[in-house]
């Protein structure tokens, strides 16, 4: 293996425009000094590698949603945030005749896949080995193991990781980011880009928030700071709190055909309109803060509202 540290680029930022205008000079600076090779040309490429991944995701969306009529929801979040449990809960709530598949991404092992198999759904386990996220190629590997024509719904559980998946959409109609109180209530501010790349957020394990000294309200307020109007659900996947709301949200996306339009704003607007009407957890927090000082009545309402039970339904 050879590294080329012996020729560090000499960067003189103020003179860059000169080099840019003089390709010969530029090539001379960068090229080898072998006889006859001193001259060179710079060829524009201007290709966005991440855009390629986004295009691959669009193709996946086209194939899954439009050719096969499969509704795809992706779950992301740290290892241990509760992605598997949440998907299990959604599967349990599904109508009998809904045909469900799950693609499970894990660096190694079959543990999550086994749990889903016990629920009687189609499961494809994808071990990513040294990669820390699912990319469209890994997803293809999972899709090959499933009968797409027979599926109504596909859940994708990404590898437990809150950094890399941000740049790798998988063509799902909704990307749902799961964080939990055990990750610390500052977890949202640490991962702003992933929140901005997702459609909805779940703050899970609210049942043990007090035990781990996490401020759930601060977490949802942070979500609203980092990504305003992001539908946010406070849940305990273990005990069932908040799951009706989450399930309704997923159902609304399915019914409304709110196709995720990667990187563009149109679908976001629609999703948020629905959110404002029916799931006002994160919305409430914003108001609570401003009303606390002047209106004690509002404050009482907010308190009633707070354990995000199923009163919306």
């Amino acid at each position, binding site marked *: *293996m*050879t*590294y*080329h540290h012996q*020729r560090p*680029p000499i960067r003189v930022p103020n003179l860059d425009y000169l080099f840019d205008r003089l390709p*010969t000079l*530029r*090539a001379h600076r*960068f*090229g*080898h000094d072998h006889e*006859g*090779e001193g*001259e*060179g*040309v*710079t*060829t*524009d*490429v*201007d*290709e*966005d*590698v*991440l*855009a*390629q991944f986004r295009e691959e995701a669009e193709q996946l969306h086209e194939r899954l949603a439009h050719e096969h009529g499969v509704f795809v929801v992706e779950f992301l979040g740290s290892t241990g945030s509760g992605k598997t449990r949440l998907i299990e809960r959604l599967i349990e709530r599904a109508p009998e005749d809904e045909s469900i598949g799950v693609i499970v991404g894990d660096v190694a092992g079959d543990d999550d896949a086994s749990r889903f198999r016990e629920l009687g759904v189609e499961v494809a386990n994808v071990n990513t080995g*040294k*990669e*820390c*996220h699912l*990319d469209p190629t890994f997803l293809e590997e999972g899709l090959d193991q499933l009968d797409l024509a027979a599926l109504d719904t596909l859940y994708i559980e990404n590898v437990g990781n809150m*950094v*890399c998946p*941000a*740049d*790798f959409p998988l063509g799902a109609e909704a990307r749902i980011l799961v964080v939990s109180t055990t990750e610390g209530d*500052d977890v*949202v*501010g*640490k991962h*702003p*880009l992933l929140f*901005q790349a997702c459609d909805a957020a779940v703050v899970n394990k609210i049942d043990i928030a007090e035990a781990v000294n996490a401020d759930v309200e601060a977490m949802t307020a*942070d979500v609203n*700071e*980092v*990504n*305003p*109007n*992001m539908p946010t659900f406070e849940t305990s996947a273990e005990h069932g709190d908040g799951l009706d709301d989450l399930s309704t949200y997923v159902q609304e996306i399915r019914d409304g055909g709110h196709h995720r339009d990667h*990187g*563009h*704003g149109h679908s*976001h607007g629609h999703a*948020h309109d629905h959110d404002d009407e029916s799931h006002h957890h994160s919305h409430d927090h914003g108001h609570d803060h401003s009303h606390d000082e002047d209106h004690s009545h509002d404050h009482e309402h907010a308190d009633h509202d707070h354990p995000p039970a199923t009163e919306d339904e």
Partner: protein
Amino acid sequence: MHEMSIADSMIDIAKRTAADNDADRITGLTVAVGEATHVNPDQLRHALEVMADGTLAEGAEITMETIDAEASCECGWSGEPPTVDGAAMIAPTSKCPECGSRTELTRGDECRLESISVPED
């Protein structure tokens, strides 16, 4: 660590571009990384060096540039995305500083192979 797969794609694109230009060697790669991606420029440089080994881009000089993030809002605001000074760190937000609604990134979420340099013959 997805810098490796990005580097792999970039070397592929570079080789294709070289072939289109009848070049049998690549002496330079200019790469631009958006601020609003999770791509680590230092790791990408290293990954490119490793992936270039044994190809016609072996030893190519790698120049890294940064693409500043820019966002715009439906209310008409546009500019550098504001940051929120949270407990953990200063984080970019997609909250419009003018109206508080959600902004969309217009720049800075890309990772480009800008150009390659090839010997002139």
